[in-house]
């Protein structure tokens, strides 16, 4: 049961997130070039909105399942918990004291940043094509969302490799 949640959290949601991110970033970067006609702009904007909404929903799902489902199992006080196993082996202890402690905190920046991107895209809509400053800020926020999620994902994979949550 624990394993299925971990699979959902890290192996199903993450690849979908990466696909949505790549597509969303491309739509955001190319939005001004797709403003040839109002119809083209409308289609491009619709695609952009669907991608950034997907990114935000996926990031929130990753954080909620990670913090409220997988993490309690990870840090359970029993000697069989992944945390206890890591701390019991000096060579693996860094996977908790550095990897998990960074992952669990920094990853929470992702849903904040992704939600603000959704707001900017939804609120400004077609105006975003000509609002270079806000569009660039949204692009940077999207990249920072990915950076925080990648730190969490890579460190999580290292932890899972050492002590799978089964």
């Amino acid at each position, binding site marked *: 049961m624990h394993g299925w949640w971990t699979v959902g959290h890290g192996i199903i949601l993450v690849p979908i997130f990466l696909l949505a991110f790549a597509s969303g970033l491309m739509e955001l970067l190319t939005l001004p070039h797709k*403003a040839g006609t109002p119809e083209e702009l409308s289609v491009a904007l619709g695609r952009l909105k669907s991608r950034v909404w997907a990114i935000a929903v996926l990031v929130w799902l990753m954080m909620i399942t990670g913090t409220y489902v997988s993490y309690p199992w990870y840090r359970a006080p029993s000697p069989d918990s992944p945390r206890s196993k890591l701390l019991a082996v000096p060579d693996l202890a860094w996977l908790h004291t550095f990897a998990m402690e960074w992952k669990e905190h920094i990853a929470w*920046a992702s849903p904040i940043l992704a939600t603000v991107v959704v707001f900017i895209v939804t609120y400004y809509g077609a105006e975003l094509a000509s609002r270079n400053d*806000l569009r660039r800020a949204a692009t940077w926020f999207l990249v920072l969302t990915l950076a925080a999620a990648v730190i969490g994902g890579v460190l999580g994979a290292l932890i899972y490799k050492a002590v799978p949550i089964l």
Partner: protein
Amino acid sequence: MTTVPSEKTNGAGVGAIVAAGVGVAVLGLSVILAEMSAATMKGLNWWPPAGPLVGKSSMGLIAWLVAWAALHAAWRRREVSFRMWWAVTLVLILIGVLLTFPPIFQLPRAGG
């Protein structure tokens, strides 16, 4: 190229951006404050199965939403300096990132 006239001010967007910076910074501050004080660590333990992580992340989320509501109300009809507030946001995000980096937030732990 289709140019859509700007009907909205930049205040709402900039307010959301700055609020995100506030949220990330408060997240980082919560992490290091919990390390500096056992009472704070205990106080942030809002849901024991996940430990103080729930309190620390929730503090960041609450600060973000409160800041967003306040800045939206204050700026949504105004043009504000994008350049200045973007710089402020990047500094806030940097503070938050640094304070969630274990070698930094674990310094109080190492000092006993």
